[in-house]
């Protein structure tokens, strides 16, 4: 790849607009904070720089990092959100508005934990098997939506949202009745054995070897969409369904597989949460992460290569919001408002002050 090709790959024309949108939203955030805070500038700066780790010289003359845990949170969330963003992106590229990432994540986490807790064979196989179980569970749940649409004409948005509820209840049922650790103070599974969980790379965080999963997944999805016949079928089906059918493309297969592959990635995100971030599965794992994946996919404008940047931005704002809440008088919800503003600005087909044909 030449340097020029590399630079257009990393900074496509759309990226400049996304960056401008981020800038405008951040400035708007400053104005918003000024309305509610006595020290708006400080709060704003903490929002922006809170997650940044700090290199400090200690009294004994050695250097050490401060606030690494917060930065670690950003990294671990980046992995989760990248996987979820891709999970939403693939069906979107086939023009399938499937919102099932949430349920697929829960079932993926559950499938991974089941294998992780039950596996008694060679220790090195525990993690790969758990990952496969997680991806299989998510993939099958995703395929279910696609098959229901193809066979019964069911609307994929309704079906996937309803299946989310079903999946979450299955998850709760399993943990409450079969996997519950009686010794834990709250309803949760036992801790996964060491052979089935990732060692943290940063102490007290969920940052692990799973960091590599985000770029690998992006690469895999980019290759899938750009370089395989299946990816071609998904793109053509999404771009022009009538044309795809007229040209004899297997439209139904592309539709179902796009949802199944999205489910595979959401399942992997569940695996990451169970085996790398939490080490066990609490029954009250919060739903809604799948929808953050939707926002990440929107922010990335459905381009795989932009997913990690979008996920990182999201995770950063979230951690910054928490830091701001802890040390100033501004609630973290401001960060949510900012995230929403960025989405609106990126999704706006044209800037209000510049007339360009969409």
């Amino acid at each position, binding site marked *: 790849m030449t340097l020029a090709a590399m630079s257009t790959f990393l900074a496509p024309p759309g990226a400049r607009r996304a960056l401008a949108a981020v800038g405008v939203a951040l400035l708007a955030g400053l104005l918003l904070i000024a309305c509610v805070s006595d020290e708006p500038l400080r709060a704003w700066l903490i929002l922006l720089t809170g997650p940044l780790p700090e290199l400090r010289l200690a009294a004994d003359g050695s250097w050490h990092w401060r606030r690494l845990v917060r930065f670690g949170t950003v990294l671990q969330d980046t992995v989760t959100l990248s996987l979820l963003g891709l999970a939403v992106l693939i069906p979107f590229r086939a023009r399938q508005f499937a919102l099932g990432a949430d349920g697929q994540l829960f079932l993926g986490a559950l499938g991974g934990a089941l294998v992780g807790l039950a596996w008694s064979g060679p220790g090195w196989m525990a993690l790969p098997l758990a990952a496969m179980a997680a991806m299989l569970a998510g993939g099958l749940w995703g395929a279910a939506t696609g098959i229901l649409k193809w066979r019964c004409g069911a609307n994929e948005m309704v079906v996937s949202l309803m299946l989310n509820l079903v999946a979450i209840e299955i998850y709760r049922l399993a943990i409450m009745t079969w996997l519950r650790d009686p010794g834990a103070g709250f309803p949760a599974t036992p801790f996964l054995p060491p052979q089935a969980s990732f060692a943290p790379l940063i102490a007290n965080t969920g940052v692990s070897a799973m960091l590599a999963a985000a770029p690998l997944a992006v690469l895999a999805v980019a290759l899938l969409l*750009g*370089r*395989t*016949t*299946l*990816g*071609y079928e998904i*793109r*053509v089906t999404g*771009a*022009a369904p*009538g*044309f*795809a059918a*007229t*040209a*004899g*493309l297997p439209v139904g297969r592309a539709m179902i597989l796009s949802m199944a592959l999205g489910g595979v990635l959401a399942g992997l995100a569940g695996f990451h949460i169970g085996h790398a971030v939490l080490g066990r599965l609490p029954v009250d794992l919060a739903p809604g992460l799948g929808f953050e994946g939707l926002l990440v996919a929107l922010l990335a404008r459905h381009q795989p290569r932009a997913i990690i940047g979008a996920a990182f931005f999201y995770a950063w704002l979230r951690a910054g919001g928490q830091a701001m809440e802890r040390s100033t008088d501004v609630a973290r919800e401001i960060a949510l408002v900012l995230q929403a503003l960025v989405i609106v600005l990126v999704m706006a087909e044209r800037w209000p002050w510049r007339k360009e044909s969409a």
Partner: protein
Amino acid sequence: MSEQSVRLALRGLGKRYPNGVLANDGIDLHLARGEIHALIGENGAGKSTLVKMLYGLEQPTAGAILLDGCAVGFKSPAEAIRAGIGLVPQHVQLVPSFSVARNVVLGAEPARGGWLRHRAAARTVEDLAQRYGLAADPAALAGSLSLGQQQRVEILKALYRGADLLLLDEAGAVLSPDEADALYRALRKLADAGLSVLLITHKILDVLDVADRYTVLRRGRVVASGRSREADAAGLAAHIVGRALPPTVDAAPSAAPSTVLLRARGLVRVTGSAECLDNVDLDVAGGEILGIAGVEGNGQALLARVLAGMGQVALVPEDRLHDGVAPTLSIADNAIATSYRSPPLSRRGWLQRPAIDAATRAMLSEYGVVARGPEQPIGELSGGNMQKIVLARALASRPRVLVACQPTRGVDIGAAQFLRTRLLALRDSGAAIVLVSADLDEILALSSRVAVMHRGAIVGHFRAAGLAPRTLAGYMTGALRQPQAAARIDSLFVAPVEDTR
């Protein structure tokens, strides 16, 4: 006709789209108060563009629109509505769960202090309906009405907004004969009340039965106009379809047709409209082109879809932007849509980008497509260049049977000639071709045999050599039909007879 009574005048109106297509060229037209004027022409003749300009959806690139003698330039439909123009769309756009009255006032509801006044709306609508004889029950749900009644509601909607110049876009096309009659009686009442009506149509009978005057559009230009009373069907048909093309392409087949490659017997498809199939028999042999002529909407498009659905048949789809290409994807992605599954374009599920790139470049240069390169989105190309790729893709697989629908519609003359030459080359290589076209010149210039369709049935079958457009016109309108007409290769070419209905 005095100058004051002219409600609408067009002076040299023209529209050239950014991609170079000249849709309207120097259109002159007068519409007086109290007059029904029919604007007639085939699909693609430029009628829709003209309507869009009158209604503020498109802006003209040449000429002027005059209302009551004053030049106007509408930037949006809202401005056109304010100037008294009402559009009755081809497909009704009512809210089915709303009552007739609420549909009529939708967007301009009588209100007081933020509260809608439904009873006042119902009264106003009833008044309007009575004044113009457009019987409609204001309380009925729009969704429960017949198409003809819904269309009356659309007219009421336009009248409610103060329109005194109605544009009816193919209003009769979706109606049954009885409903169409009722619609036309209502239009006559409106005209008697002093309103002006522009009736956009491709039906000759609309001109003769309904309109006071007519204007014929063909390829974006006015080719004829006059009083309906002095017009006759055959003359109008000749204007609409035009004269024979200059023999720029050599249509004579290089060899006699060989074996039959495509055979259909007794095709039936019931749809409840004229777009149906009624016992269609046809054969196409290798080395010949069977032309399918007919007024649009008489089953030709359906026939093409049915034939193309049989497999092993390459297709040039009628609706290029919807079925022919994926406009947002690259030229390369579009070019490989029927061949990406096999080597060298893909191996074991992996696309071979260099091979795809090379194949696309070869296609672009062989067909003389003006484009930046294989990665350019195909939607940025002109209609002609886009169609070259659609045809190139269909021909790349060396098909034995090709169904080509409107292969040169909206394409400039140079590209059209190129595309026709390609079709003839395919024929000469021994393939069987079914050519569906609204352009009679094209049918006559390319075909070996011609079949005319009317209401889903083949009503005439002719040897193309020496055939005149005028002969076909009678069959296209349904005035003539051959008994037991079929496009079988052994069908006798019988003499036409008058329909005695």
